[in-house]
C-alpha cells in the first residue's frame, strides 16, 4: 500500500489515468439515472469533450516526463491493478477520446431519428460504457483487467447495435455477441495459461517472468489463444464475418463511433502482446507469426476490397472496406520493424479519421433518405452537395491519393516493405488501394452522374450544421494530416518506440 499518500492532497495531474476511465463510467451512471434523452446527451457530450483534454495532457506528460504508473486503490503493482501510460497507449487514448468528442455533437440528430425517445438515455449510457471500456483496455497494464474492460465495451456495443433501425440489427448483434464472446473467452484462456506459467498478470511483470519460464510451449499456446481471440475482436480476416452486418444495421451514431475506435483498440492490445510482452522473448518471425499475419493481411486487403466492390448497401461496402483497411494496419505490424509498426499506428489514426468521416456522411444520407442502397443515391451529389463533397474527399483519402492521410500511411507501409526487403508487397499495397478506387468510384459516379429520382428530389438536402461540422472536422483532419503529418507521424514513432521499450521497463 502506498504510504506517502496520506499527506498528499488532491493532485489532478496525478489522478488523470483514473479519471480517463472513471469519468465515462460516472457519466454512464448519470445518463442511466436521468432517463431523459436530451439531458443524457448533454451529459455524454460533457464527458466526451473532457476526455480529449485528459488524454492529451496524459500524452504530453508521458512525452515529457516518461511513463506514468498509477496504482489502482493504492495497491502497488505487480500485485494490484496498474494503469500504465506510455507513449503507445497515450497515443491510442488520444485517438479514441478525440473521435468520441467529435462524434457527440453529431449524435444528437441521428439518435433522435434512429432511436425511440424512451430508449435514448439508455443508448447514451451504452455509448459511455463502451467509451469507458475502450479507454480502459488501452490504459490498463493488467491482462485480466483488460479482459474485463473488453467485455464492458463489447456488451455495451452489442446493446448499441441491437438498438438499430430494423430487426436485422438484432441478428447482427446476436452474431457479434457470439463471436465476440468466443473471442474474449479465447483471450482470457490465453491469459489464464500465462498466469499459470508465470503467476502474474501485470504486463511489465510478465515481460520479466516470461524469460525465466523454461517450458516455452504453453507460453506459445497462450500466444496463439490470445492472437485468435483478439483477432476476432480486430476483425482480422477471416474472422471478420460479424463486422459488416454489425456496422450496416447499427444506429448511425454507433457505426461512426465503433468503426473509428473499437477495432483499433483491439489492435492496440494485440500489438501490446506481440511487441511489448512477447517481443523480447520470442522472435516474431522465428515462429512465423509474422508470415501468417502478412498472408492474412494480404487476403484481407484483396478479398474484402473485392467483396466491397459488389455491395449494394453503402454502409456494408464501407464495412468491408474497414476489414481491408485493418489488413493494412496488421500488414504494418507484421514487418516486426519500427518503421512498419509506425506505419500501422499512423494508419490506425488515419483510418479513424477517414472512416469516421465516411460513416458520418452515410449517416447523414440515412437521416434524409432512410436508405443507403446504392441505387437510392442517384443524383444525390446535387441535392446534398456538402455531404457528398465530404464523402468524396474522405473517399479520396481512403484511396490514398497523395496529400491525404491515406497516402501518408501507404508511404510508411511501402517504405517499411522495402526496408524489410519485401518490395513486392508495395505492389500489393497499391493494387488493393486501386480496388478502393473501384468501390468509392461506384458511389461517386452514382451520386454525381445519375439523375435524381423523385424521392431524392423531395427529401435529400444537407443535414443540419450539428452534423456537418463534425464531418467537416474529420475531413479537414484527413487533409491537414496528409499535408503536415509531422504531428501524427512523430507521435506514432514515439508510440512505436514505447512498444519496443516496454522490455526492461518493469523494474522501474
Amino acid at each position: 500500500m502506498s504510504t506517502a499518500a496520506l499527506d498528499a492532497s488532491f493532485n489532478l495531474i496525478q489522478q488523470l489515468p483514473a479519471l480517463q476511465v472513471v469519468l465515462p463510467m460516472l457519466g454512464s451512471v448519470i445518463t442511466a439515472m436521468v432517463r431523459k434523452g436530451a439531458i443524457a446527451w448533454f451529459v455524454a457530450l460533457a464527458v466526451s469533450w473532457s476526455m480529449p483534454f485528459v488524454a492529451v495532457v496524459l500524452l504530453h506528460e508521458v512525452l515529457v516526463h516518461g511513463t506514468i504508473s498509477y496504482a489502482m486503490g493504492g495497491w502497488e503493482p505487480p500485485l494490484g491493478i496498474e494503469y500504465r501510460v506510455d507513449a503507445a497507449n497515450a497515443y491510442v487514448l488520444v485517438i479514441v477520446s478525440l473521435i468520441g468528442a467529435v462524434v457527440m455533437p453529431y449524435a444528437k440528430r441521428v439518435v433522435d431519428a434512429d432511436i425511440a425517445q424512451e430508449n435514448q438515455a439508455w443508448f447514451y449510457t451504452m455509448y459511455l460504457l463502451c467509451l469507458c471500456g475502450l479507454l480502459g483496455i488501452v490504459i490498463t497494464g493488467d491482462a485480466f483487467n483488460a479482459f474485463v474492460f473488453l467485455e464492458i465495451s463489447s456488451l455495451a456495443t452489442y446493446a448499441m447495435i441491437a438498438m438499430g433501425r430494423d430487426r436485422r440489427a438484432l441478428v447482427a448483434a446476436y452474431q457479434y455477441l457470439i463471436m465476440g464472446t468466443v473471442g474474449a473467452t479465447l483471450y482470457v484462456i490465453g491469459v489464464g495459461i500465462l498466469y499459470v506459467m508465470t503467476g502474474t498478470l501485470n504486463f511489465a511483470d510478465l515481460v520479466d517472468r516470461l524469460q525465466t519460464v523454461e517450458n516455452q510451449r504453453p507460453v506459445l499456446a497462450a500466444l496463439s489463444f490470445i492472437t485468435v481471440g483478439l483477432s476476432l475482436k480486430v476483425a482480422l480476416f477471416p474472422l471478420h464475418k460479424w463486422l459488416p452486418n454489425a456496422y450496416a444495421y447499427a444506429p448511425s451514431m454507433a457505426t461512426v463511433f465503433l468503426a473509428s475506435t473499437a477495432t483499433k483498440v483491439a489492435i492496440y492490445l494485440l500489438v501490446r502482446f506481440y511487441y511489448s510482452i512477447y517481443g523480447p522473448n520470442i522472435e516474431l518471425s522465428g515462429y512465423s507469426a509474422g508470415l501468417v499475419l502478412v498472408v492474412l493481411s494480404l487476403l484481407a486487403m484483396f478479398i474484402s476490397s473485392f467483396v466491397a466492390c459488389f455491395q449494394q448497401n453503402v454502409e456494408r461496402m464501407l464495412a468491408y472496406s474497414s476489414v481491408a483497411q485493418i489488413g493494412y494496419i496488421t500488414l504494418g505490424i507484421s514487418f516486426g520493424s519500427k518503421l512498419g509498426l509506425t506505419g500501422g499506428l499512423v494508419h490506425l489514426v488515419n483510418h479513424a479519421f477517414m472512416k469516421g468521416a465516411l460513416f458520418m456522411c452515410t449517416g447523414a444520407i440515412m437521416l434524409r433518405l432512410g436508405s443507403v442502397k446504392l441505387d437510392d443515391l442517384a443524383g444525390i451529389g446535387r441535392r446534398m452537395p456538402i455531404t457528398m463533397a465530404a464523402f468524396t474527399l474522405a473517399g479520396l483519402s481512403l484511396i490514398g491519393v497523395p496529400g491525404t492521410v491515406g497516402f501518408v500511411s501507404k508511404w510508411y507501409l511501402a517504405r517499411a516493405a522495402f526496408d524489410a526487403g519485401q518490395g513486392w508487397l508495395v505492389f500489393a499495397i497499391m493494387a488493393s488501394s486501386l480496388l478502393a478506387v473501384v468501390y468509392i468510384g461506384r458511389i461517386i459516379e452514382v451520386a454525381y452522374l445519375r439523375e435524381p429520382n423523385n424521392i431524392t428530389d423531395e427529401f435529400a438536402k444537407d443535414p443540419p450544421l450539428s452534423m456537418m461540422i463534425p464531418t467537416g472536422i474529420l475531413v479537414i483532419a484527413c487533409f491537414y494530416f496528409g499535408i503536415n503529418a509531422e504531428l501524427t507521424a512523430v507521435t506514432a514513432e514515439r508510440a512505436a518506440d514505447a512498444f519496443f521499450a516496454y522490455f526492461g521497463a518493469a523494474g522501474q
Partner: protein
Amino acid sequence: MMDLNGLLLFTILLPLVGALGMALFGRYPNIREGITLTTAIILLLQVINIYDYLMAGRAPEAGPFEVLPGLAIHFAVEPLGMLFALIASTLWIINSIYSIGYMRGNDESRQTQFYICFAVSLFGVMGIAFAANLFTLFLFYEVLTLATYPLVAHKANEEAKKGARLYLMLLLCTSMGLLLPAIVWTNALAGTMDFTPGGILEGNASPLVMTVLMVLFMFGIGKAALMPIHFWLPAAMVAPTPVSALLHAVAVVKAGVFTVVKVIVYIFGIDVLAANGAGDWLLYAAGFTVLVASLVAVRQDNLKKRLAYSTVSQLSYVILAAAILTPISAIGAALHIAAHAVSKITLFFAAGSIYTAAHKTEISQLNGIGWKMPITMTAFAVGAISMIGLPPTAGFLGKWFMLSSAVSADKWLAVWVIVLSTLLNTAYFLPIIYRAFLLKPDVTGDHGEAPLPILIAISATATGTVLLFLFPGVAFDLAERMVGR
C-alpha cells in the same frame, strides 16, 4: 513587392483561388467566366514574371514544407518546368475563350463544374511544372488525374461514364501501381527524391535495378501514353472538345511527357543512362508506339479519334527523343513538347469548331468543308503541317533536333522511325486537307463559320504555331538551360 517564394506559391495557388471564386459565383455565368479569364490572364503574367526572375538568375523557390521527415512538398523553378508552365498558362487563356464559345454554342449543362475542374487542373499543372521533387510531382500528377475525371465524364451519359471510368482507372492503376512503387523504391535506394541535374541514382543502383525502375517509371507515367497503356486517350474522346484540348495540348499528356523527360534527366541522368544502357529498351518501345499509333490513326474515320492516335504517336516522339540520351535530343524533346502543344490544340479547336458549326464528327463527312469554314480549315492545315514537321511551323524545330541528334548519336533505329512516321503523318493528315478543300461539297448542311470566340482562339493558336517557328528564342533558351549549356 512580393518576395520570390511568395510569388511562386501565389502562382501555383492562383488557379485554385480562381476555382473558389467560380464556385461562389456559379449562378452568374458572366461573372464566372470573367473570373476564369481574369485568373488565366493573371496567371500568365505571373508565370512571365517568374520567367524574368529565372532569366535573371534568381530562380524562385518555395518550401520545402515537410509532410514527414524525408517527405516534403517543395517547389523550385527550373527551365523545363518553366517552359511547361509558359505553354500551359498561355494556352489556358486561349482555351478559356474557346470554351466560352463552345459551351455556350452547344448549350452544355453543368458549366460551373466544368470551369471549376478546369481551373483545378491548371492548379495541378502548375504544381507539376514547378515541382522540385518526385513526391510533389506525384501529388500534383494525381490532382490533375482526379480533376480531369469529371471533365471527361462531363456528358454523364453511358458512353461518357464508360470512357471516364477507363480514363480514371488506367491512369490511377499505372500511377499507383507502378509509378508510386518506383518513387518509393527510388527514395529507398537514393535516400532523396529531389530533382538533381545529373540524376540521383548513380552509384545507388545496379544497371539491372535501374532498368526495372525505368520500366516502372515509363509505364507508370500513364499520361505519357506509351503503348500499351494508351487506351485512355481514345476513350477520353467522349469529352467535350475544350476538354480534349486540355487533355491533349494544355495539360494531361504534356504533364506525362514532361514527367518522363524530367525523370530521365533529373532522376536517372542522361549520362548515367547512356553509360549503363538501362534505358536502351525505351528507344524500341517509343519507336514501336510511334509507328503503330500512326498506323492506327490512318485507319480512323472519326476525326477526334484520328487526332487522339496522332497524339499517342507524337508523344512517343518526345519519349524517343529523350531516349536517344544526348543533350541535343533532350532539347528536341523539350521543343517538341511546345510545338505539339500549340499544333495539337489548333487541330482540336478546329475539330470542335466543325462540330459546333456543322455537327460533323467523321472525316468522310468533311468533303469541301474548307470553303464553308475557311478560317477553321486553314488553321487546321497549319496544325497538320506542323504535326508532319514541315517548315514554317513549330513542328519542324523539334523534329530537326531529334533527327540530327539521332544521326550524330548513331541511333539509326530512331532515324528510321522518325522518317517513316513522318510519311505516315502525311498519310493521315493530308487526305483531310485534300477532302476539305479539293473535293466537291456534300449536299447536306447549310452552315457558316463557328462562333466568334472559337474563331479568335483558333486563329491565335494557328498563328502561334507559325510564330513559334519564327521566334523559337524563349523555348530554345529554356531547353538549352535544361541540359546545362
